[in-house]
């Protein structure tokens, strides 16, 4: 029947190693709410979210109690709002305020989808939405924003990259009195997934059903602690240990997802096979890399260790879940990972090394606090570099950097909660990329053959 060792292992993973389900995210299509009258569209949006997500938080809490698994966040992702703005015209900020009100009414901590997909160019409503981002994020609490500026098939829309550099800087300025929090809620993607349950980049793609449940798992602490029991194994063994742990973690996510879907009467979408760190001690991806034998995350060898980790997490997770999607991989958000924070503080982890790491793991330059004096063009150039890595390697990459207005490298910015705190990281140099960004246009899609 039950094996006491297995039972105690599960309890230890949850109790001491911070294993949790990071998020249950309900994806809601707002296409049925499009209306030429923006006031009416907003009212349809509010009603639909409140109707479908009314029981999301209580059901999440019920499942936590039934299985004894903490479910940290209950969230909502919606159809990119630019599509509603295209039909209604008017000020897109009205939609942001509506989403914020709906999020508060149903009790979720974030709603994602103040978004636009502009990888090949701008359609109606999209420029307006991008221009409204600073106001939307400074006048709401729970709304998250993402913009997809590139893809392997379409190339990179450099006009959008230019605009996003400005939008990030303006959002940080507009929220300077709240630790520049606005910029922490903006993700600029290349190859954005349409079923991602993680914030701030979650939105509900147009190919998705009317409503679905997606789940993001976590568990860096459990992986690290499993590795600690294999101190002298070679890297093949290390990979096997990670796979086995990822399998267990993902099975838990699958159970929670199917159960939530059953109780809410909404189809189950995907499990996002992720290792999502938190600032809590023992819940760090950097510490897994260090457990493998790298003295400090950021030293030479970090990229290889992360590549192994990322691949093993996917291999272990794929068999454990009926449907896998989202970002799926190890996250490396600097301010949300105790080990990364220490490595950045000591100067062992640089933005350049993080950029290299993003070529082999999930997402990209995430939660990196940069000096407040950074120009919009430099932020755009960071986005362009990151998007190029994603475009050429057919993977998702993203940028979430926070310009710390009025502060310089070496100081710290404290966000609190899951966002953590970040040492302000120096950029490579202060040389200008202005002209390159000002050229605009599109970087053509890359060859898919002659791979080297």
């Amino acid at each position, binding site marked *: 029947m*039950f094996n006491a060792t297995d039972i105690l292992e599960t309890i230890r993973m949850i109790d001491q190693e911070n294993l949790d389900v990071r998020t249950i995210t309900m994806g809601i299509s707002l296409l049925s709410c499009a209306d030429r009258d923006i006031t009416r569209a907003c009212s349809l949006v509010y009603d639909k979210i409140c109707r479908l997500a009314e029981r999301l938080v209580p059901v999440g809490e019920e499942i936590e109690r039934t299985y004894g698994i903490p479910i940290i966040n209950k969230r909502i992702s919606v159809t990119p709002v630019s599509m509603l703005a295209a039909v209604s015209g008017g000020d897109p900020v009205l939609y942001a305020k509506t989403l914020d009100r709906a999020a508060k009414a149903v009790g979720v901590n974030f709603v994602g989808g103040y978004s636009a997909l502009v990888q090949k160019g701008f359609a109606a409503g999209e420029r307006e939405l991008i221009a409204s981002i600073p106001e939307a994020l400074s006048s709401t609490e729970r709304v998250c924003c993402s913009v997809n500026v590139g893809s392997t098939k379409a190339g990179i829309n450099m006009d959008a990259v230019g605009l996003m550099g400005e939008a990030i800087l303006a959002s940080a300025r507009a929220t300077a009195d709240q630790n520049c929090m606005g910029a922490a809620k903006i993700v600029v993607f290349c190859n954005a997934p349409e079923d991602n349950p993680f914030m701030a980049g979650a939105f509900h793609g147009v190919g998705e059903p009317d409503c679905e449940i997606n789940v993001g798992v976590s568990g860096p602490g459990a992986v690290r602690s499993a590795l600690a029991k294999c101190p002298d194994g070679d890297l093949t063994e290390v990979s096997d240990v990670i796979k086995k742990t990822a399998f267990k973690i993902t099975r838990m996510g699958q159970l929670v997802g199917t159960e939530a879907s059953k109780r809410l009467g909404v189809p189950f979408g995907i499990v996002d096979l992720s290792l999502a760190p938190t600032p809590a001690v023992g819940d760090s991806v950097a510490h897994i890399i260090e457990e493998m034998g790298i003295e400090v995350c950021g030293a030479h060898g970090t990229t290889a260790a992360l590549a192994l980790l990322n691949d093993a997490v996917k291999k272990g997770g794929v068999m454990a879940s009926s449907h896998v999607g989202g970002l799926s991989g190890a996250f490396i958000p600097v301010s949300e990972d105790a080990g990364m924070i220490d490595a950045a503080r000591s100067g062992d982890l640089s933005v350049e090394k993080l950029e290299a790491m993003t070529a082999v793991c999930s997402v990209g330059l995430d939660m990196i606090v940069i000096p407040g004096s950074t120009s919009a063009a430099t932020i755009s150039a960071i986005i362009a570099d990151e998007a190029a890595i994603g475009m050429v390697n057919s993977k998702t990459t993203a940028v979430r950097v926070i310009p710390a207005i009025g502060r310089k490298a070496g100081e710290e910015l404290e966000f609190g909660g899951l966002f953590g705190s970040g040492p302000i990281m120096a950029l490579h140099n202060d040389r200008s990329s202005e002209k390159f960004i000002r050229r605009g246009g599109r970087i053509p899609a890359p060859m898919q053959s002659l791979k080297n």
Partner: protein
Amino acid sequence: MKAVVTVIGRDTVGILAKVASVCAAHNANILDVTQSVLSEMFTMIMVLDISGLNSSFADLHDALDRLGGEIGMKILTMHEDIFNSMHRI
């Protein structure tokens, strides 16, 4: 349908009896009990049949959680599916 109750803490008199009486009050049938005491740390794993509960699972969970608080032990009540999912293919 089964649940697994795990009790962890310092060994004292009457733990099993107290947990069992809460289970009985909720009409949960005890199917199996294993326990070990290692350097005064007490661990008990109890498997319950919860198909005939006279209350909701949440009520049983909360009652055992409260008991844990009263006797200074950690009592976790978890549906069997979590263990089946994580440890069986």
